[in-house]
């Protein structure tokens, strides 16, 4: 069974993250919808990637629905989703 995890909500200021384990070599694949896509799309993807790499997750598919979350929220939600998926150790 594929490891999967999700965190966050669809409320304003939040980001809903669903992570799925994938075969090694896939890399970090991010599918992003955002209320501020034009202004911050690149920055959001970069933040998500950084969190994954920091937690030693290099192969993952992430579906993100963003409602204007700040970096700290994005980082927290991605970390939580990966922890729930068992793809990284818990605190």
């Amino acid at each position: 069974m594929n490891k999967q995890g999700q965190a966050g909500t669809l409320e304003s200021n939040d980001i809903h993250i669903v992570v799925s384990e994938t075969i090694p070599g896939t890399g970090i694949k991010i599918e992003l919808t955002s209320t501020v896509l034009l202004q911050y799309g690149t920055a959001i993807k970069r933040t998500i990637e950084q969190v994954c790499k920091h937690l030693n997750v290099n192969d993952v598919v992430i579906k993100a629905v963003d409602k204007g979350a700040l970096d700290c929220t994005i980082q927290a939600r991605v970390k939580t989703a990966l922890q729930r998926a068992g793809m990284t150790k818990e605190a």
Partner: protein
Amino acid sequence: MRRTLLFLPGNNPGNVQSGGVFGADGVILDLEDAVSPLEKDAARNLVAQALQTVDYHGCETVVRVNPLVAKGAKDIKVIVPCEPDALMLPKIESAADVKEQIALIKSAEKPGQKPVLVMPLLETPMGVAHALEIALSDDRVTAICLGAEDYTAGLGTARSKEGTEIFMARAVVANASAAANIDGVDTPFTDVQDEAGLIKDTMMAKNMGFKGKLSINPRQIDAIHNVYAPTGAEISWALRVLQAIEEGKNRGTGVIAVNGKMIDAPIVSRANRTIELAKLLNLLEVE
């Protein structure tokens, strides 16, 4: 100052990131009662991140962790290195409870980190009964707070706006805080629509010796601060005290009296605090 400590639900990004704009003396990022059991991990991570990046504009940052029996140790381990000013410890019933958690805090602190203080929350009859020992349990105990909702449930009575059912608990907690020379913070007033009721309740708390109130809504902040603002009469008195001390110093006399009352250290301390607060609130005439 701890006139107001504002609760912010720890899993709510909107609240967590904007908590610093309301002018409260402190914010309590809540991992306990405001967070559903299924989201404790999400809240812990969010608060941890927020402490590192959100500007709380001078508010004291407090995190209410979960009790040890409900994964509180995990909260301490993750939150403490993010350098909150203090942790609020819920449902504390003994000095041993406090010491156990302080040990965990110490082991979680980074080298050179400013010591994280604690604010035990007394929410049960046993906790209130042990108020003094809890207040004295460790140097890191910087305030004790009363949580009346759970306390009255423990007493088996109903909570009321008049507060008769918590009168004794308030007196005990206020007294213990004064005896230990720390702050006592009163329970929140839960009817957010009733501003007159809030003012009355805060006056009661102030008169009983509480230095502030827990708050559950930003709308309460100004009203509580107004109650704690020194009145014109209090300011005049404080100025007279400080003037008398100055004069006494200049003349070389030891004991000073104002209005026939002896001035000793606690009175000077109170006068100084009053003037500090008056300055902060722009209540003094600019020289």
